[in-house]
């Protein structure tokens, strides 16, 4: 059984997050094995209501993340979906902010109780530049919602603009990722999520 030991990777990922807050972005590359990240037994992972835990032969727990990916580009939706699925994530895609909010239960009818969809989504990853509602506006709506605000939101953009990055991080974005996305970015992402939860 091959496990990726996250300790080393996570410390690099923490540096990455700090760097983001200081408005520059470094690209790290990690070797990617295509296997789900295995977590040491006993680690308390709060994945939100519906996350599944699988015990592997080595006694380690793997957690399946359910990710909602939002992007107006069909090519990018396909790419991010494949990247996330290759990292053992369950993926739902949405082509714009409105559809994303509808899926999350924040459509026109406001709901007061937890939607099934909400409790299952562990992460939202959204493009910044979208017609209509931008990724930033979507981020704000999510963080303003009492039911959704705990869900980490990652912003993606093809443009490396420090003011844009800072704006998103200040609004509560978990992470900012530069497009085009690669496998190493998804590894970074999972590490960042785990690091922030522990």
């Amino acid at each position, binding site marked *: 059984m091959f496990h990726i030991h996250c300790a080393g990777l996570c410390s690099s990922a923490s540096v990455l997050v700090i760097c983001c807050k200081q408005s520059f972005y470094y690209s790290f590359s990690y070797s*990617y094995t295509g296997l789900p990240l295995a977590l040491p037994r006993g680690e308390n992972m709060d994945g939100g209501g519906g996350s599944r835990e699988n015990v592997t032969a080595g006694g380690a727990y793997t957690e399946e993340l359910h990710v909602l990916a939002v992007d107006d*580009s*069909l*090519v*990018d939706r*396909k*790419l991010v979906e*494949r*990247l996330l699925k*290759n990292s053992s994530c369950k993926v739902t895609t949405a082509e714009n902010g409105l559809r994303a909010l509808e899926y999350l239960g924040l459509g026109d009818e406001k709901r007061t109780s937890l939607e099934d969809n909400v409790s299952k989504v562990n992460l939202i990853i959204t493009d910044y*530049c979208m*017609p209509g509602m931008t990724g930033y506006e979507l981020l704000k709506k999510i963080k303003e919602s009492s039911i959704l605000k705990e869900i980490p939101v990652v912003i993606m953009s*093809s443009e490396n603009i420090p003011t844009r990055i800072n704006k998103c991080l200040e609004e509560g974005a978990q992470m900012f990722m530069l*497009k*085009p*996305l*690669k*496998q190493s970015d998804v590894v970074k992402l999972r590490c960042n999520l785990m690091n922030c939860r522990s």
Partner: protein
Amino acid sequence: MEVGQMQRAWVEYTKSLFREGFLDAQFQQLQLLQDESNPDFVAEVVSLFFEDSERLLTDLTSALEQQNIDFKKVDAHVHQFKGSSSSIGALRVKNDCIAFRNFCEEQNIEGCLRCLQQLKQDYYLVKSKLEALIRLEQQIVAACGTIPMEELSS
């Protein structure tokens, strides 16, 4: 052609596409995402790229034919094209888009029209090359061969 020959041809052709700047490392990322459980991933993404691109080229042509050109709209289309070409690793097309956006910002009609021409040329070129590459891959797979991705790093 027997499988070994086809595989060698595939390696040579792919390397030439990188060498000549048609494709960049992002295309290799797409290839890495293709495996037995997703054997058509590259072909599928590339096909989406073609559909998207053709629509964008039509929209761009039409936008630049208007009496009063809406440069913001033109820029928005080019931005989209830049994004999708970057995501699949179509380097020349991406670079053409970058140059195009500069002319949009300057509201330079002549520059934009020249860029559109260049963009069309490079797009159709990379399209035919990607189609040829994918056909070759399909022939290899049909002959029960495997795509020798590891040979690209040699």
